[in-house]
């Protein structure tokens, strides 16, 4: 009896143990997680900054001083580069370890390992896109450069120094929630972080959707719906630039695309990824100093995509924003220069249809030859599930992403992906040199190493130069090449080399006194190379240039104000026409209020205005009604650009697309405008009743959210009171927006700068500072950036000093 009782107790204890010691579905390992000595309770912090005054590290050659200012921005002072990058790695790991690690897991396609089978398709896609494969190739090149290798090694050692210090008790809370542990950082992970950015910013294209549309509609209608450009665009490089080089010859023959239907394409990065930068010269500036402003508009997340810091060692004194996982500063300034980036959109991903010799897929056709493929078997570990193997075929173009194991409809559907980011590149070298650049020439040299994701690098120097380079690897193509599916068996479909560095679009010291970029067309039609993207910006760029053309003697406040400019150019070009054709007879009270509000509206999307909400609800409904044809299609299609939609509304009111498919009548654009107005107003009325609100302020309707990477509501912030929207200079939409705002005044007597971002240096949801800058960011406040000359310079904003000591 007693033995039975003991066994009963033992079994009970063991069952309890195994239930609470391991993750159960979504439930974290309860006993570990709730253990007040080690679990999540220990992640709550009472101080914004809680680091020891001294830490010793064996790796160091000399002591390193880290000064923290009020925004918890670390200012690192080292005596040599190795110690500097070690301290940078340590600092990033201290504040952002889980994020750094998770971004790499996501890039590599190992999410299933952490959260289980529901991420399987995502993981497969990441591997098929070849991100890790690309990172490995780049790493080889990076490690051949002794300075870059030393920088990466030191950074990696710094991250691992911190990881080694950690026991379960100190793991960031996300590890405890998901029940896994950090793994050591490697140089390959740094290389992968750069591919993560390349994926986010340069892999968005719609070639297969274009092919579907072309096959379905024919070229004439395709051109009407998706024109590449218009006569009076406002490109990145001003039209005053004359192309003073002899372009390389391109194949003039029109390449006949392969007209295949693709039912389903994989999900692309959000087209809202954008950015603005602008730089003015001394003549245009109120106090005679070059000024530069930049803000990358990316997905708004916590922990933030950016981390801000100063790096100081002999030969380098640089301040700015960096990406957790990448050594150096990505967007910033030093004593002599400032630089900022926006995404230089261009179609740098192309699809080649592969014709395999037989089912074994060991050879594929290339003109009259058969080339060998390479098979890579990817092993995907699935938490609490069976390991999945995925065979990926590599061709000389790149990996075959679409085949009958993945999205392809049959054995004939084999599309290989060719992408500039697959090639080996030394992008880190660019930032290494920019961080130390003294003048235009250094900047020019630094840019040569850069491939992907292509960026518009704005530049200003204290000595008075301003410049802008549309920089990255751009393939030479003939007209329309790669806009549609290409034939992998035909060597004439190959890219025709790369645009030489000096043939890339660039401009230095324009007569108008300023340069800007906002993801619009890079060049006008005189540029001798073919440049295409399906999604160029048409609004932010014109607003910035309009303002800059109007302003004289620009001040720092003007620069800040322009970053927060809420002028809705899109509304200004669509609303007058929409409102003029409204049939106002029979309006009910709500409709009359909306109508009056919109009549009086000055097109500014200020946070607390109501008109923008009415306009947006109206526009959304109208846009959906106009392009209902695309929703009904059985193959993947995209909807035409808003700019083209408005162009057609204004110029072609009886276009057949204005007819609604589901009704028997034939509608024109005026019918649609009237019916969508009513439905838009209904939508707002409904919003008001669900939210029990009498008014519909724009920021509440739009609901800008800064979302935790795991999408946990309680780790995220929503309802941020910020104006703007997509296509507006202040590009804060529901989920995207200015992820780091920076204004730099290049005063030769001492560079001054201001910055803010929607997040916090600490990535710990249990830190009092978590998300603390969001409100200031939303209201347009900037923090003066404390750009220190030396570790001994007194500064009242320094709140703590830490010394890393040689062990």
């Amino acid at each position: 009896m007693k033995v039975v009782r003991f066994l009963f107790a033992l079994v009970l204890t063991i069952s309890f143990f195994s239930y609470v010691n391991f993750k159960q579905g979504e439930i974290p390992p309860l006993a570990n997680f709730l253990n007040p000595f080690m679990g999540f309770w220990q992640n709550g912090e009472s101080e914004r900054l809680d680091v020891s005054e001294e830490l010793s590290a064996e790796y160091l050659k000399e002591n390193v001083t880290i000064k923290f200012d009020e925004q918890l921005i670390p200012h690192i002072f080292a005596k040599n580069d190795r110690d500097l990058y070690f301290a940078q790695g340590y600092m990033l790991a201290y504040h952002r370890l889980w994020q750094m690690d998770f971004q790499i897991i996501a890039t590599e396609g190992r999410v299933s390992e952490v959260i289980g089978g529901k991420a399987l398709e995502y993981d497969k896609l990441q591997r098929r896109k070849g991100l890790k494969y690309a990172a490995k190739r780049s790493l080889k090149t990076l490690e051949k450069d002794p300075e870059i290798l030393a920088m990466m090694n030191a950074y990696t050692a710094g991250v691992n120094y911190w990881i080694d210090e950690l026991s379960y008790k100190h793991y960031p809370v996300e590890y405890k929630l998901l029940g896994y542990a950090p793994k050591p950082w490697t140089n390959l992970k740094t290389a992968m972080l750069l591919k993560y950015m390349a994926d986010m910013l340069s892999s968005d294209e719609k070639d297969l959707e274009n092919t579907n549309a072309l096959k379905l509609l024919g070229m004439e209608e395709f051109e009407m719906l998706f024109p590449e450009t218009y006569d009076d665009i406002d490109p990145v490089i001003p039209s005053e630039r004359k192309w003073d080089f002899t372009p390389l010859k391109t194949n003039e023959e029109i390449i006949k695309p392969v007209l295949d239907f693709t039912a389903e394409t994989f999900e692309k990065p959000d087209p809202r990824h954008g950015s603005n930068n602008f730089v003015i010269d001394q003549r245009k500036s109120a106090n005679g100093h070059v000024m530069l402003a930049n803000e990358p508009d990316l997905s708004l997340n916590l922990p933030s995509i950016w981390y801000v810091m100063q790096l100081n060692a002999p030969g380098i004194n640089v301040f700015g924003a960096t990406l957790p996982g990448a050594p150096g500063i990505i967007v910033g300034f030093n004593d002599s220069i400032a630089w900022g980036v926006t995404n230089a959109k261009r179609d740098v991903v192309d699809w080649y249809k592969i014709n395999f010799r037989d089912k074994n897929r060991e050879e594929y056709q290339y003109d009259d030859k058969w080339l060998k493929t390479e098979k890579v078997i990817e092993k995907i570990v699935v938490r609490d599930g069976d390991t999945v193997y995925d065979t990926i075929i590599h061709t000389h173009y790149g990996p075959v992403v679409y085949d009958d194991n993945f999205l392809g409809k049959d054995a004939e559907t084999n599309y290989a992906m060719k992408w500039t980011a697959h090639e080996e590149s030394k992008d880190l070298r660019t930032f290494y040199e920019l961080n130390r650049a003294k003048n235009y020439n250094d900047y020019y040299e630094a840019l040569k190493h850069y491939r992907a994701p292509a960026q518009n690098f704005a530049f200003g120097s204290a000595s008075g130069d301003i410049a802008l380079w549309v920089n990255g690897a751009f393939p030479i193509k003939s007209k329309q090449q790669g806009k549609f599916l290409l034939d992998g068996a035909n060597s004439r479909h190959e890219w025709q080399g790369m645009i030489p560095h000096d043939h890339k679009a660039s401009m230095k010291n324009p007569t108008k006194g300023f340069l800007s970029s906002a993801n619009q067309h890079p060049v006008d039609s005189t540029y001798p190379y073919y440049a295409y993207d399906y999604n160029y910006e048409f609004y932010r760029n014109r607003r910035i240039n309009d303002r800059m053309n109007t302003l004289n003697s620009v001040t720092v406040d003007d620069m800040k104000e322009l970053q927060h400019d809420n002028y809705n150019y899109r509304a200004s070009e669509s609303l007058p026409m929409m409102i003029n054709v409204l049939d106002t007879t029979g309006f009910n009270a709500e409709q009359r209020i909306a109508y009056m509000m919109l009549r009086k509206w000055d097109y500014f999307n200020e946070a607390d205005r109501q008109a923008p909400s009415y306009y947006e609800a109206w526009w959304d409904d109208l846009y959906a009604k106009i392009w209902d044809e695309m929703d009904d299609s059985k193959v993947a299609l995209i909807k035409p650009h808003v700019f083209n939609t408005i162009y057609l509304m204004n110029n072609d009111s009886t276009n057949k697309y204005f007819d609604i498919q589901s009704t028997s009548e034939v509608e024109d654009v005026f019918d649609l405008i009237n019916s969508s107005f009513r439905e838009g107003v209904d939508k707002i009325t409904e919003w008001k009743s669900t939210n029990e609100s009498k008014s519909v302020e724009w920021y509440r309707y739009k609901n800008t959210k800064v979302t935790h990477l795991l999408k946990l509501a309680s780790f995220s912030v929503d309802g941020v009171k910020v104006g703007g929207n997509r296509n507006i200079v202040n590009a804060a939409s529901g989920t995207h927006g200015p992820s780091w705002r920076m204004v730099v005044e290049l005063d030769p007597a001492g560079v001054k700068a201001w910055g803010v971002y929607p997040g916090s240096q600490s990535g710990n949801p249990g830190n009092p500072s978590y998300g603390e800058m969001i409100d200031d960011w939303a209201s347009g406040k900037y923090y003066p950036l404390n750009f220190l000359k030396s570790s001994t310079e007194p500064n009242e904003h320094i709140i703590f000093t830490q010394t890393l000591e040689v062990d």
Partner: protein
Amino acid sequence: MVFIVRLLLIGVLSFIFSLFSPWWMIVLIAAIVSFIMPGNNFSAFLGGLLGAGIVWMVMAWKVDADAASLLSDKIVKLFPVDESSMLVLLTGAIGGIAGGLGAFTGNSFRQIFIKKVKQSFYS
């Protein structure tokens, strides 16, 4: 008396060892203490439950108060309870059950031998 000493011993040892050991050390401590100081199974279970449970609950409460419930207010939204004090209770419950089951196991194991000793004494 044995009950109180056992309870205190489990509590004190649980606290000390928890500072540097994994959570399941409290199961072992409760088991070993109850093995050394046996009683009836219910009183052993209760000793473990209260000894470890109170330590976990008070510790959670203290840590949370120090950090002004910043994180627990966020974590609680992931659980089907609405207040961070419920999370403190839940923590106490998990610690308590762990201690209680450990004590029950240790005690019932000891009882197997006690029976043998008693039999040999009377025979």
